[in-house]
């Protein structure tokens, strides 16, 4: 068979192999995205207008962008994501490093660290509402032992959102620990041994061996966490319900409310499109940052 013939054959097989995935993807994932984009230009904004609807161009976008509630929720989403990402990146890394050391019952301890990951978010929410209860929760009891009242956590308008972000991050920690642990196992043992001989301290080893080795892993995790940090509907509903007032109402909650409580489907879709654009831009910036970092 000629070389070009083989190429053509390989190409055909290539398309054949990706076809099932792409078809499923196009029909059940991509189409809803496009559909949402289209709906956002129509006037499906009340239960009466679901069937007889008109094209309204950018009206929905204008009404979203001029809406105070949207920008508030937008800000909350960003705060949530920043805290969520920071917590996961820092603690995922630190815990992986210490769990990588040898000690008695390491496997059991590791399993304990993974359990929150498999617990459903609604149950986590119910339990944390009790744990962080200002008057009868154990966390504030510790504060009271030192004579302080302790913060109000979920009912404090300033703390509700950060607290929810940290609890959500806590529940997702296992993924980061596992990934970092896996990467740590790839560091050749002799590198450590050399460092040991040269008398490097623990911090020096982290700084000069572990971090450089884990940089690609951490960047990959950063991207995944960024995406996951916007999938926060269940966490917020389970923990704060968007309150107190609107102080922890994030975009996903706003979209749900607008769509399913107020039946403004087009407005909700427009909110979704705007928010997605934002995520794509942020991700572009991350990717750029990564390439700059790596080409240093």
């Amino acid at each position, binding site marked *: 068979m000629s070389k070009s013939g083989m190429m053509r054959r390989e190409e055909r097989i290539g398309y054949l192999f990706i076809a099932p995935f792409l078809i499923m993807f196009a029909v059940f994932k991509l189409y809803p995205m496009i559909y949402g984009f289209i709906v956002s230009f129509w006037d499906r904004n009340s239960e*009466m207008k679901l069937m007889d609807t008109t094209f309204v161009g950018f009206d929905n976008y204008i009404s979203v962008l001029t809406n105070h509630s949207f920008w508030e929720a937008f800000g909350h989403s960003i705060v949530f994501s920043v805290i969520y990402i920071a917590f996961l990146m820092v603690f995922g890394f630190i815990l992986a490093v210490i769990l990588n050391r040898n000690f008695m019952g390491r496997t059991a301890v590791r399993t304990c660290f993974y359990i929150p990951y498999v617990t459903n978010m609604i149950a986590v929410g119910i339990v944390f509402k009790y744990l962080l209860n200002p*008057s009868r929760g154990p966390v504030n009891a510790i504060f009271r032992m030192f004579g302080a009242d302790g913060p109000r956590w979920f009912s404090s308008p300033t703390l509700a959102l950060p607290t929810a972000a940290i609890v959500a991050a806590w529940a997702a920690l296992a993924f980061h620990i596992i990934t970092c642990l896996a990467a740590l196992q790839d560091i050749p043992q002799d590198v450590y041994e050399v460092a040991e001989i040269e008398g490097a301290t623990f911090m020096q080893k982290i700084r000069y061996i572990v971090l450089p080795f884990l940089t690609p892993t951490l960047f990959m995790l950063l991207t995944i966490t960024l995406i996951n940090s916007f999938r926060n509907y269940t966490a917020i509903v389970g923990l704060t319900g968007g309150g*107190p*007032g609107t102080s922890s109402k994030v975009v996903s909650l706003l979209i749900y409310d607008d769509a399913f409580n107020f039946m403004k489907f087009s407005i909700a879709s427009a909110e979704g499109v705007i928010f997605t654009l934002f995520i794509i831009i942020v991700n572009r910036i991350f990717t750029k940052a990564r390439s700059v970092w790596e080409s240093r």
Partner: protein
Amino acid sequence: MKRIIVALLAMAMICTSVFAMGSAEEPASDYDRVVTTTVTATYLNETWFNTMNADFEKETGIHVEVIPVPGDEDEYKAKINIDLMAGSDVDVVETLGPKDFSRQVSAGFFMPLNDVVEAAGIDPYALYGANLPVEDDGNYYALPFKQEMYCVFYNKAIFDEAGVPYPEGPWTWDEYVETAQKLTDKSKGVYGSLMNADLPWMYMPAQQLAIPFYKEDGTCNFDDPAFREAAEWFKYISNDLGVQPSVAELEAEAANWNYYALEGYRLAMFPQGNWFTRLLNSQEDYPKDWNYGVAPLPSAGENGNNNLVSLGYVAINKNAAHPEEALEYTLWIAENQWKYEGGIPAFATMTEEQQQLAFGSIAEASHGQVTVDDLYQNLINTGLGAVSSDIVGTAAAEYYNIVKEELSSYNMDLQDIDTAISNIVTRVNEAIASAE
């Protein structure tokens, strides 16, 4: 390796067949006549609801198939609207509260009942009086099957301990607060009062004064001074007077509020709907070591001699798959549900016998804590008029949410009352405008 593929395929086939079983439409029914109804998941776990449907089936031969919605009442309301809009063919829909009902009617979800109800030989105008939801077009799209009234429940043990006489109607909110002050004893963890960090408690007196929520031109009327006064009063008695837990404290609990009334704090008095008796009577779920009593809702002054009343409606989906059975079930529910639920029927007047029926079971379940007479005197025969406990009108759902959000922030000292009210007016007017 072939074996692996074969095994994989076999597994796939097994799973798909199990799956097909799981995903098949409901199996062909064994019953000749079926009616479907969507309810909140709360009903699902209550014996009276199942007994009621069984009795209906015995009487009419129609099997009731229940489609419950997971989650609480708010989730139920959202979900049922989505499904009706999507063209669900469920037959009978129960809605609590005029706010949500009026929205469903204006969305055209329901069948007009005038002809069919009257053909069944019922005169609903005489039977239900003002409780019949007649729309502007002269049709009614539902029958009211129950009403819920507010009253004050109190903890007799706390009154006895403090040597304060039990409250009696008629009384005013000033007297209520005065009593609460006498009972509040923070050293023992006793609060004189509890009002939910929710609507309508946050502006209850204004609603008793029947201040309209909409101005005549259809815009938001929350800038009426009565609303401001009521909201300020609520915050004053909670945050300044301290006779009840503040909104911040309640938010911090983040527990079901019914829990505070029974376990969390020791609460002397709490204005609540009559349905709360079910919790107070349930020694199994809410063990308590004190007896409760009932007093009428305090009056909000000369023009505010009103009780807040909410209605439950039963309606037929216009896409109902079994319209005939749906009608039978609807008529039956409107006539009988209150007897099973231990609620108050929505009839214009109640006969002696009906009072006995409505309150007898509650009194019995309370093991002597309250009598039929206590309940009748303090819920029905209070001398109070009736106003709706809901916001009813354009964009009512948004209106409700906005007021709750802004007033919560106000109560937690995040904004002053002027900002709260101006935010409410701006946001509600935006919502009204976009709804039209």
